């Protein structure tokens, strides 16, 4: 009779850090694409509200990139060697190499697009009347974008702290780097058409990061881990990455800018749509994958059995359904006047806050439940 050989399972090779990395890469790629979409619309429609969502989308992606890759590096045996990417990552047939370069391109894009939208006196979507003028100082008039015009002797740092909104600039001001960042952004920022063209190029890298976030799992030899079937895993990772990217942009905009207007509400509804689409992709995986690839049956059984609490309770209920309910409640509660702006802001932010651990739990489930397809020997 044939013998099945059982090896150490994928979790034994990769563990929780790779799950966090994959989840945060999905967020990074999705957030950039969502942000660039908003940026593009804001530019075409001259809508500063959308510009604000773009700015916080870029910030979400930046935060994910600041945390995710170092978590992966800490998993490696030689993190410093791995960090020398141009010298070490040379096999372009490997998805890890492709992913490393995609992350590099997306990181550059996220940093510059965030810097150009968040800093500088000439930054886009700032009140046109204030463009080119130093930002706010004590006693100045409040500007429509939250800044105040600067008075004689007032420093940008002091002004930023005085801003009623724009929490990021406040933080930069408190750290004492706001003036430097503003000057740097103004000196390097290209014209808007060129900025958008560059943003489009960086969006290709961000899309690559999003795809890599799935292929990091699914890139092995065909059938080695049946649960990571690319046909089923790619939609889950792409949809969820876009969903949490958009969701965190909405949450941060509501929290830091205090803006819960129509544009933000529409983006919250788009987040709901993407997360529900993610749910459908996950349901398709557990219902259809075992019939398409029988070897995946054990992995799906693990998801619904041994790891049901993490999968159903954590990834689906906490990570998808609760944020969806919070976002819908915030949007329709505010539109119908049943929810105060403060309560709506809290709902948007809490939804965004729990989307991220939900995505991490989903990635963990895919790792924990995965089993190598047993090696069949003809003995």
């Amino acid at each position: 009779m044939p013998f099945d050989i059982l090896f150490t399972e994928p979790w034994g090779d990769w563990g929780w850090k790779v799950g966090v990395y994959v989840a945060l890469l999905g967020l990074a790629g999705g957030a950039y694409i969502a942000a660039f979409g908003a940026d593009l619309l804001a530019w075409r429609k001259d809508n500063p509200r959308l510009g604000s969502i773009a700015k916080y989308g870029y910030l979400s992606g930046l935060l994910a990139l600041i945390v995710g890759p170092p978590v992966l590096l800490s998993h490696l045996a030689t993190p410093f060697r791995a960090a020398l990417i141009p010298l070490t990552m040379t096999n372009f047939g490997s998805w890890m190499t492709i992913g490393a370069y995609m992350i590099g391109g997306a990181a550059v894009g996220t940093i510059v697009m965030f810097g150009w939208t968040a800093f500088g006196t000439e930054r886009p979507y700032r009140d046109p009347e204030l463009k080119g003028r130093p930002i706010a100082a004590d006693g100045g008039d409040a500007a429509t974008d939250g800044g105040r015009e600067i008075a004689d002797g007032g420093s940008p740092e002091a002004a930023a702290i005085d801003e009623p909104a724009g929490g990021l600039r406040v933080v930069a001001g408190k750290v004492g780097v706001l003036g430097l960042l503003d000057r740097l952004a103004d000196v390097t920022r290209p014209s808007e058409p060129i900025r958008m063209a560059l943003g489009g190029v960086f969006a290709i890298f961000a899309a690559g990061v999003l795809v890599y976030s799935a292929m990091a799992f699914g890139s092995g030899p065909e059938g080695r881990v049946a649960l990571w079937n690319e046909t089923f895993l790619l939609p889950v990772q792409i949809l969820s990455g876009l969903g949490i990217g958009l969701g965190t942009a909405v949450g941060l905009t509501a929290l830091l800018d205090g803006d819960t207007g129509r544009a933000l509400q529409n983006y919250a509804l788009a987040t709901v749509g993407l997360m529900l689409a993610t749910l459908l992709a996950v349901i398709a995986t557990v219902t259809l994958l075992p019939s398409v690839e029988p070897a995946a049956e054990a992995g799906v059984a693990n998801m619904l059995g041994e790891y049901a609490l993490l999968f159903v309770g954590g990834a689906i209920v906490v990570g998808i359904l609760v944020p969806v309910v919070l976002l819908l409640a915030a949007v329709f509660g505010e539109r119908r006047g049943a929810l105060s702006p403060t309560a709506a802001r809290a709902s948007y932010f809490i939804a965004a806050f729990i989307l991220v651990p939900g995505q991490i739990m989903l990635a963990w489930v895919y790792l924990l439940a995965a089993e190598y397809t047993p090696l069949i020997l003809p003995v």
Partner: protein
Amino acid sequence: MSTQDADGPARILPNWGSCIDCGACEVACQRTWDLPTDTQRIQVVRMNEGTDDEQNKPMQCYNCTDAPCVDVCPTDALFFRDDGTVRVSGDLCIGCHYCGVACPFGAPQYPDAEVPEAEEMDPLGMRGNGLMDKCTSCEPRQEEGLEPACASECPTDALVFGTPGELSERLAQDDAVKPFSDESARVVFGDQAEEVMPE
């Protein structure tokens, strides 16, 4: 005994029917190369776990012709030598475990033992500190005209060593058991699979 022939690299293959689960191969490998205790270049793995047919059999790197580990290694730390065998460069490996996830035979190991850097940089030296380690087919022994230690010390000749042509002859004998499924044989022998292991 051959180290290499025109028809391909010499490999160690299991002859499952002869194995008596004694573990002598593991001991021979550990002792010959003075390996750390958690380094298992040949590993006795459990088959049909939890059933009446549960057995333990040795597995190691088969220096596959279509080596999945080489395909997925991001840093080209895994590479084919001119003779067709697969080696790992200690100075390029980053310990990402991609090869471990890709290898269908569970060959890559990642021992945590402290190993001197000079040893790790030696192409045939042992690896530790989380870097990838695997069977080297006892290349230094082959250069001395000796079989790999595991095959040499196996009391029942359950480990067969030879080039594809020699293995084909050995597997054609009545008592030999075909070591792989057709799919696995294609990974190990590539286009030679049907010559070495006729259906």
